[in-house]
């Protein structure tokens, strides 16, 4: 019934609009010099609006951005991003200026004649080659960095499996031998929620946990699995993301650069935290403390919006202490 009510309101608005437009002049529907003048000015006003909005957002929203990369590999991502962003920013400001300023400057007038200008090979050459050169540089840097990130050949890396299901994350550390035991959904039973093959020798010392602890300065080699649908392990602070695909193991790696504690002391993080806590206080919620997070970033069902895991980066000795305290699978799953 309520829907009918809304539809009725919609129809009523439409009819009244129809009535209002009856008094509009439907003669002279082609732009005159007067219209050109007015719309030209509007274009200029819009340019001012656009510039103010763009600059305002660039400045005011600086504080909500992610802080500097918390992984060593991510440094070049930030660098490349800054270069790209400055570049497209400059081009954006120039192009928008040209588009709307020309609209104003060359607004039509009966007295004026347009220039007949159909071609210029020189100009076209310039704006084919210039973007091409710039792109070669961007592509070069980008591909170099991509190879960097995707290089997982470091044998010293700590191997950790990140395991996803609707709607939770688990993790499995490879243990003393730094080799994960085999896993398959057919082994899921009781407390063996990750489907680890307990007949595999490598499985015995594996350790299953619900939160990630990472040592600062050691390369981490993640292996991702999913037991049901696609998920994506998104760790924005580390500039890291990889899909979790049922039926296959995907990989990603990075080296944490700052411990959680160190990150909390970063000026950018402090500023963002103050902003957030002002809002939370107004709503009467507990204050927020910075933590690294792993979020699901591939639509995976109703509770997709609440699928997260805390990541804590600590000093290496503290990590050793923590990992030693975790029980092995062999001792848990009999």
């Amino acid at each position: 019934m309520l829907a009918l009510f809304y539809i009725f309101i919609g129809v009523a608005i439409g009819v009244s609009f129809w009535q209002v437009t009856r008094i509009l002049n439907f003669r002279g529907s082609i732009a005159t010099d007067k219209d050109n003048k007015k719309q030209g000015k509007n274009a200029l006003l819009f340019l001012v609006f656009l510039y103010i909005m763009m600059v305002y957002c660039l400045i005011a929203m600086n504080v909500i951005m992610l802080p500097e990369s918390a992984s060593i590999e991510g440094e070049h991502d930030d660098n490349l991003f800054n270069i790209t962003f400055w570049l497209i920013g400059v081009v954006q400001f120039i192009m928008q200026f040209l588009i709307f300023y020309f609209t104003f400057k060359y607004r039509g007038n009966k007295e004026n004649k347009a220039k007949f200008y159909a071609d210029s090979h020189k100009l076209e050459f310039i704006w084919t080659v210039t973007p091409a050169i710039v792109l070669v540089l961007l592509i070069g840097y980008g591909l170099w960095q991509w190879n960097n990130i995707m290089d997982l050949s470091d044998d010293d890396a700590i191997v950790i499996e990140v395991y996803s299901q609707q709607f939770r994350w688990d993790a499995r550390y490879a243990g003393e031998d730094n080799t994960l035991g085999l896993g398959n959904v057919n082994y899921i039973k009781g407390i063996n929620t990750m489907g680890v093959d307990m007949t595999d020798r490598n499985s015995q010392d594996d350790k299953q946990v619900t939160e990630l602890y990472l040592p600062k300065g050691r390369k981490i080699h993640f292996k991702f699995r999913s037991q049901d649908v696609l998920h994506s392990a998104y760790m924005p602070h580390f500039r890291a993301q990889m899909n979790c695909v049922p039926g296959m193991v995907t990989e990603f790696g990075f080296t944490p650069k700052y411990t959680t504690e160190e990150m909390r002391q970063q000026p950018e993080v402090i500023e963002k935290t103050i902003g957030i806590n002002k809002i939370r206080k107004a709503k009467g919620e507990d204050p927020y403390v910075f933590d690294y997070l792993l979020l699901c970033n591939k639509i995976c069902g109703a509770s997709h919006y609440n699928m997260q895991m805390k990541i804590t980066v600590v000093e290496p000795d503290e990590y050793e202490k923590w990992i030693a305290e975790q029980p092995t699978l062999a001792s848990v799953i009999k």
Partner: protein
Amino acid sequence: MSEHHHKETFVTKYIFSQDHKMISKQFLITGMIMGIIGVFMSMLFRLQLAWPEKSFSIIEAFLGPHQTDGVMNPDMYLALVTIHGTIMVFFVLTAGLSGTFSNLLIPLQIGARDMASGFLNMVSYWLFFLSSIIMVISLFVEAGPASAGWTIYPPLSALPQAIPGSGAGMTLWLVSMAIFIASSLIGSLNYIVTIFNLRTKGMKMTRLPLTMWAFFITAIIGVISFPVLLSAALLLIFDRSFGTSFYLSDIFISGEVLHYQGGSPVLFEHLFWFLGHPEVYIILLPALGITSEVISTNSRKPIFGYRAMIGSIMAIAFLSTIVWGHHMFISGMNPFLGSVFTFTTLLIAIPSAVKAFNYVTTLWKGNLQLNPAMLFSIGLVSTFVTGGLTGLVLGDSALDINVHDTYFVVAHFHLVMGVSALFGMFAGIYHWFPKMYGKLMNKTLGYWHFWITIICAYGVFWPMHFIGLAGLPRRYYTNTNFPMFDDLADINVVITLFAIAGGLAQIIFIANFFISIYRGEKSSQNPWKSNTLEWTTPVEHIHGNWPGKIPEVHRWAYDYSKKVDSNDDESDYLHGDDFVLQTTPLLDGEEPS
């Protein structure tokens, strides 16, 4: 054909019409109705994003069992974004845009009496209509419509246990899309054949208006890529209904291991994006083609770099079929493939830049007639540049890692293909309304429509880039579970306010459209003083388009403001006026441009 056409009944004239002009109106009206549904959905889920726990009676009214006390359920949120995407991408901006303007303009601008096959053209529309009906029906199934995202990645889209929308809703979605693809293919083949074979005397390929080039190349991309989506959909239907394992393997859900073995969702992603990326250009190229025509006509200047424009359309079309992997950098495919796709993707920036620069140069030193169509075309260039530039971030695999599937992507593609293509569609409607209905649309309402829409478009999508850079994933029902995103709440409210204002502003357009059909100013034969052939036909539609012989073409479509002395901008017009119809023969000693 025109001399001996038989008497038409109401049914053959208005419903099962084989006349391309009537079919184009059918596409337009159907597309507009689907557009209203799609935009309305976006306003509903924007309410949810801005005020997550607040109760709205409008949500209570329209979402029925899928809401609790005026707050939508998470499943329904996902369903809304899914259907919004599907409807806007396929039903509005593919069928509504290409279907309308390819049908209207191809025969008129190349000088043909109708499409190569009027019957297939009619079939194409009615298949589209059928698929629209099925898509709308899917909104009413008990468990809710498809809700796995418009990309319908399996296993989520394959398993009703994973999300309720993957039951009957997804079945209807797949059936609807399969029919839609058939419609699109029949239409595209018709467009290609018509442009190849039915051009009038003198209409060489190099004299075609850029609209024709754009529609022609668009149809070719469609024919190449849509069948791949059909195969992807068919395999998914097999997996869902007949127990095959093309996309599924090793799945444990609802407490049991499923029998699927050996398939891979990554295969689906490849097949889907083999259409999905060219689809962006299937949407965008017609809009750019319309813009080329409208900007040139209203600037009273030839389009700058006609051949470069054709070259860049072809380059974009070719590249568009080899870049699909940039949607999959972090899908788990081989990183080396990622490198290749980064390379090909960033190359697209070159022809795109050429197009943008050429538009701006066309404006330069023009005599701009700022009609609503012209403003929408200028707006398109603006949003195309804004949205296109951020493509340099997303196309670069190393940078994509961190913004993939965040609101940065949402902002990017809405500007570069959503808003831009809509602007192209509006430009086309304002410009060719006289050709469709013999009337002109009201310009005052047109101006209001344009300025409110572009301000709202930027108000929605410019700030959205930043919440993406803050790391907020898309398709989150709410971000209240993450304190780190608490400071984005205000921005979400602002975005929603702009979105609602922008959505409501479209009422101005719809009112203008329908009122003008009945009460608009009668159009003259060539209201915009344009060069192209469609303006040589009579204002009243006749079957076969031209009453007598089809006119012969003697020049290209862009001889605007051609002067006696080509080096003196102030000298007299060579043909006495600032436009020269394509049917005007060359004067003695006149250089063809």
